[in-house]
């Protein structure tokens, strides 16, 4: 049992301890490299928090790991659920590594703790609606890298395409001898397997407004020709990496708490 009298020596944990009260959280245990915190989820309907999580936050060489502190087997959360962003060892994956926030000062500690609270709040949402909020999570494993790259390309393309992306209405599918890019169910570009350019370059650019003398052709569109190809490649890589991630989990039991999960039913 951690010694509650001794303050932690970890600087990162001290910063988190200093902001815990801003979230109504209570420190119930501390040691050299661990804080145990009771985190209340303040309900939108007011009054006292009806749900509280007991969380262990460990400082592992400067890498903060949070997990539910299971006491006598009671807990809110499944042991492992990729869709709920709970890793195989029960730790929470609060950030993609390249977007990680390190609570080195008060401002960043508030951000870190805010993410933890929001993560736990969304666990209650997932429990009730049996799904994770849409658009709130990185793709699994290294697929996240391709997802982020595709997001940046969509943002750079802008306009209706970026709006469709934000609404989750852009996807790729493999058909015949290549990949199709679809926006709101309509095919807007194709990339044949093994080719370096979209097919065909004689088509109108799907992102440019029409010119007075007709549509701008893709082959003449310096703004979008390459991004269009790149976004398809990134989305394909994203899809493939996620499929590979799911294959590596074959045989692992699904926790059964969500409606749909690549692990399937146990």
């Amino acid at each position, binding site marked *: 049992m951690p010694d509650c009298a001794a303050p932690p020596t970890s600087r990162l944990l001290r910063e988190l301890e200093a902001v815990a009260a801003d979230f109504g959280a209570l420190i119930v245990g501390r040691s050299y490299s661990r804080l145990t915190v009771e985190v209340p989820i*303040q309900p*939108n309907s007011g009054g006292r928090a009806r749900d509280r999580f007991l969380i262990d936050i460990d400082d592992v060489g400067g890498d903060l790991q949070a997990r539910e502190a299971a006491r006598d087997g009671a807990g809110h959360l499944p042991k492992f659920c990729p869709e709920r962003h709970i890793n195989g060892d029960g730790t929470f994956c*609060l950030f993609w590594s390249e977007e990680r926030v390190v609570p080195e000062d008060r401002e960043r500690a508030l951000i870190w703790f*805010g993410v933890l609270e*929001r993560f736990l709040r969304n666990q209650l949402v997932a429990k*009730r609606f049996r799904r994770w909020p*849409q658009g*709130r999570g990185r793709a699994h494993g290294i697929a996240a890298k391709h997802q982020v790259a595709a997001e940046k390309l969509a943002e750079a393309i802008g306009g209706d395409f970026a709006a469709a992306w934000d609404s989750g209405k852009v996807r790729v599918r493999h058909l015949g001898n290549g990949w199709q890019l679809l926006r709101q169910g309509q095919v807007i570009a194709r990339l044949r397997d093994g080719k370096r350019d979209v097919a065909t370059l004689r088509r109108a650019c799907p992102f440019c407004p029409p010119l007075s003398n007709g549509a701008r052709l893709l082959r003449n569109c310096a703004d979008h020709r390459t991004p269009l190809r790149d976004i398809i490649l990134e989305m394909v890589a994203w899809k493939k990496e996620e499929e590979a991630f799911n294959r590596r989990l074959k045989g692992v039991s699904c926790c059964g708490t969500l409606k749909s999960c690549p692990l399937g039913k146990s």
Partner: protein
Amino acid sequence: MANTWKHDKAVARVEARLDEVKNPVVKEFKRDMSLENIPRDRAYKVDGVHVYADILNIGDILQTNQTEGETCHKRTLRFLNQHYRAVHRILSECDVKRVDFHNQRLHALVFKPYNTEDGAEAKRVHTAVAVAQLMIDVLAETGDTDEKVPAAVLRVGIDTGLSLAVNNGRNGNREPLFLGRPANKAAKRAGGGTSCGIYLTNEARAAIGLKRLDEDKLDSTPLTKSEIAASQEAADLPVDKDYIVEKWREDMKANPIGSFEFTRPTPPLKNLDILKLTPGNSKRMEALSIYGDLDGFTKYVGRNIETKPEDVVKALHVIRSELDSVLQSVMEGRKIRFIGDCIHGLLMEGTAHQTDAEASVTTATLCAAAMHSSFEICIDKLKEAEVDVKGLGLAVGFEYGPMTVTRLGMKGDRVRCSISRGILASEDEQCRCDKDETAIGPSAYKEASRAVRNLFEDDRKATGLRYDEVVDLLAEEDDKTAKATKRAALEKAAPAVVAAMDRPFQPHCKVD
């Protein structure tokens, strides 16, 4: 507008309502009693015949134009107004109580002669049949070709038996509300098909010596001409069709309906004073129509009406008061009426000039979730008070579109009316729900934010909506109204949580 439902306030309201009916009085209804202005902690067991008459062609009137514009609504309201006046004349001449005219659906009660007389029930059923046929005959002549108002086509449902009469929960209106199998079954027969005629339940058939039918034949077997003639002879009504039509024409001449004029109400709708509305002062706007119905209530009343009617009074008062509070006090909508154990209301966000469709749909979604959350509190508190609540659930449906609100009928006895395609559709949406379900209509779905659309499954239904989690989910998926609601709810209690709302949130999973 950020309207936040508060758990502790809901608990306080429910406890206060329960206290108001801690010792309800339930009496057998007798000759010297009145069914008007029933106090909220009182109920009467009434042995009577319930008549429901549906005007079948209301849907046709609403669909005469492709666009549901002002002309369509004016014609529909004029249609209803003319027929309401004719029905008013019939019921008052035949000493039958009008319970309510809920848009295209009339509910009336025959409760005389009293059971102190021999053969009272049979006489009541015969009277109900004769009055139903009189309505059918009269309304076939109370159209107006000049104003393009067609005759009304009626389908009537009739049942007999014991029901509970309670306060109807509406300020300024004296009529009672009836709960129990006969009111429910009569309504089901009236709504059980698209063919006109008079349809009796087996209880009503047995009362006048007609043979029982299989349940699945009741909605397809109207009374025959000879059966109706037998009832007309037995009832011996004091008036006939020609008399009523003549009196109706005199009414129309002396008190012409006048034109319907629409203005837009200024939100919030909770401030709309329905008692001031007339045909010349009617309201019309794009809004949400919402129906919340107690699933399983008819069986519940049937189970308790003899042995524990006090439980029915308590449960109904507590639950419907709380649903009313959620709709009006919390969400700032306007309750139109209770129809038995069902609440109908309108919600709107926007300005005096324009409705914000997306925000209105989100508010309706939050309202539905708050209703379900409040209902849960009601059930818990009623159980604590040892009131039977077994089998009760809540089903909610809503739809968006142009809506109307006005009052129709005879001056001094006007009835509120809120009719449109969207209102009929919202009732259909609620009807396709089981307990703890919520359904969204197709027009509302189309106007909804992506987050609200995600909430409902492919069949446009959602199960288990509760306020806290719905606000969190919709806010997380960037619904503007939900985010404002969450901010308003948490800015004092948890400002750090509010600050975190605007920061990036993209958790990951890396471990195999």
